[in-house]
């Protein structure tokens, strides 16, 4: 059996476990696709071929010996290059971090994926230090959108979006501080899960904004997303924000009906500053789910502002020494934002964190009468690479500043979200399925129902 480019992780794992395909064949097929297409997509910054082959051979040996293998046996995956990969400096999209010593140990989430049988094939391009919504990188070049390679992937997990959207690997991992999983999912037409803040360990990943950083998976199907998420769950003393909750598997719950769920559309702020494609996408999803109720999330614009303030100041604090000693080695756009962040008066940060507490309480009240909120993942489909402005209702608006306006007020209080791809023509666009804290199972269930109805799917990459 040979691999087809769009075999899901579940199909690969099943074929490997039943000896219809070897883990080594699955790995070689992924490496061949990367070699064939990544000169265009530019999604990978490191390819760990030797390590991947060694891991795949070990899985095949286990299977030959009759040993149990994990639910991701032989599944190739890749990680945003802010995850520690043993033997590589953790560059986090920067020039400066290339001078770091190679990581001694993999990030916790890589260890958990590999413990489940997955095979790491490389590290992925990203916006510098994750302070980015475009997927462009001045040091490594932009990752490119697999549906139109003249367009952005979205960021900052741009390589993750490109690699999964381009079907180079069925699963990738990324990070999301203000939207960096949901934005590339939207532009690249794939599924992305930003779990509840604190759900998945961030141990041995390069940080950006400790108050807001999340890690999570990308995939081309909801089942694959749940498979990856489930194997990565669990407490980790090495991330102080990581939950002590036990495992809460979602895979067995995916096919449960959604008819009992109270699903509403986020109104007000989330229906403003959107292009017709985003309105169409939310409309299709709402119609399929029979959702007609519109719920206004109070003070969402202020929530976005507070997330911005916390991001720019915590980010500045993280990078202060590098800004002093190596300012010319930053992407100038990132440097100038961070320098400005260092100059924001401290009371503003404290007030933003206090507002965060207030806003969290408002959402908790909403989730007493609603199980799911629907909102656009991005205001538009993927802009052109290098595009500076877009025209919305006759008003010129900066692209960078507006790509994440609908994701920021949600990650600000750590709510779990599945970004689902609506395969519009000519480009896909995502919708956020937002649930109450710790209810990833509900968001995934709704995403699965939509997938089964044919309303959402990862389109075949046409740009390759």
């Amino acid at each position, binding site marked *: 059996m040979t691999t087809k480019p769009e075999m899901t992780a579940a199909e690969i794992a099943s074929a490997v476990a039943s000896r219809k395909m070897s883990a080594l064949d699955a790995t070689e097929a992924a490496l061949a696709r990367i070699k064939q297409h990544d000169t265009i997509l530019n999604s990978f910054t490191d390819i760990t071929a030797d390590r991947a082959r060694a891991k795949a051979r070990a899985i095949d040996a286990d299977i030959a010996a009759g040993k149990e293998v994990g639910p991701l046996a032989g599944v190739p995956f890749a990680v945003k290059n802010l995850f520690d990969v043993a033997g590589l400096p953790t560059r986090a999209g920067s020039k400066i971090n290339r001078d770091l010593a190679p990581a001694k140990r993999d990030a916790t989430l890589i260890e958990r994926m590999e413990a489940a049988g997955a095979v790491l094939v490389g590290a992925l391009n990203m916006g510098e230090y994750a302070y980015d919504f475009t997927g462009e990188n001045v040091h490594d070049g932009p990752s490119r959108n697999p549906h139109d390679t003249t367009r952005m992937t979205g960021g900052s997990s741009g390589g993750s979006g490109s690699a999964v959207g381009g079907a180079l690997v069925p699963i990738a991992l990324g990070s999301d501080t203000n939207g960096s999983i949901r934005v590339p999912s939207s532009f690249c037409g794939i599924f992305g899960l930003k779990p509840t803040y604190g759900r998945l360990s961030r141990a041995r990943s390069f940080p950006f904004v400790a108050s807001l950083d999340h890690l999570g998976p990308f995939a081309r199907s909801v089942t694959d997303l749940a498979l990856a998420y489930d194997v990565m769950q669990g407490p980790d003393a090495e991330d102080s924000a990581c939950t002590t909750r036990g495992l809460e598997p979602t895979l067995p719950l995916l096919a449960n009906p959604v008819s009992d769920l109270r699903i509403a559309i986020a109104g007000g702020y989330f229906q403003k500053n959107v292009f017709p494609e985003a309105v169409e996408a939310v409309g299709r999803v709402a119609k399929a789910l029979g959702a007609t109720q519109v719920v206004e999330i109070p*003070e969402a614009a202020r929530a976005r502002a507070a997330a911005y303030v916390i991001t720019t100041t915590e980010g500045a604090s993280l990078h202060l020494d590098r*800004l*002093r000693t190596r300012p010319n080695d930053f992407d100038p*756009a990132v440097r100038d934002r961070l*320098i*400005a962040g260092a100059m924001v008066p401290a009371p*503003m940060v404290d*007030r*933003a964190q206090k507002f965060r507490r207030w806003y969290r309480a408002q959402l908790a009240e909403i989730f007493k009468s609603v199980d799911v909120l629907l909102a656009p993942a991005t205001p538009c489909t993927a802009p052109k690479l290098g595009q500076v402005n877009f025209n919305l209702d006759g008003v010129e608006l900066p692209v960078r500043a507006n790509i994440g306006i609908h994701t920021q007020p949600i990650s600000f209080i750590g709510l779990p979200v599945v970004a689902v791809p609506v395969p519009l023509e000519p480009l896909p666009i995502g919708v956020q399925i937002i649930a109450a804290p710790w209810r990833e199972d509900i968001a995934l269930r709704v995403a699965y129902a939509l997938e089964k109805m044919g309303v959402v799917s990862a389109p075949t990459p046409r740009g390759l």
Partner: protein
Amino acid sequence: MAEPLDDYIDAVSKALALPVEEAWRPAVRVNLEVSLRLSRLVDEFALPDETEPAPIFTA
């Protein structure tokens, strides 16, 4: 001509020992204007004195 925020940028740059080269100043100023505008949006929202900030520390 000096912009209104230039004195502030100079003072904080000195206080933090954070270099701001002349070539970067316009972009830093624009970013700072955005940060301060969004800060004001948060600032003007009245909250009770007892409001706890969101980050949690468990001893």
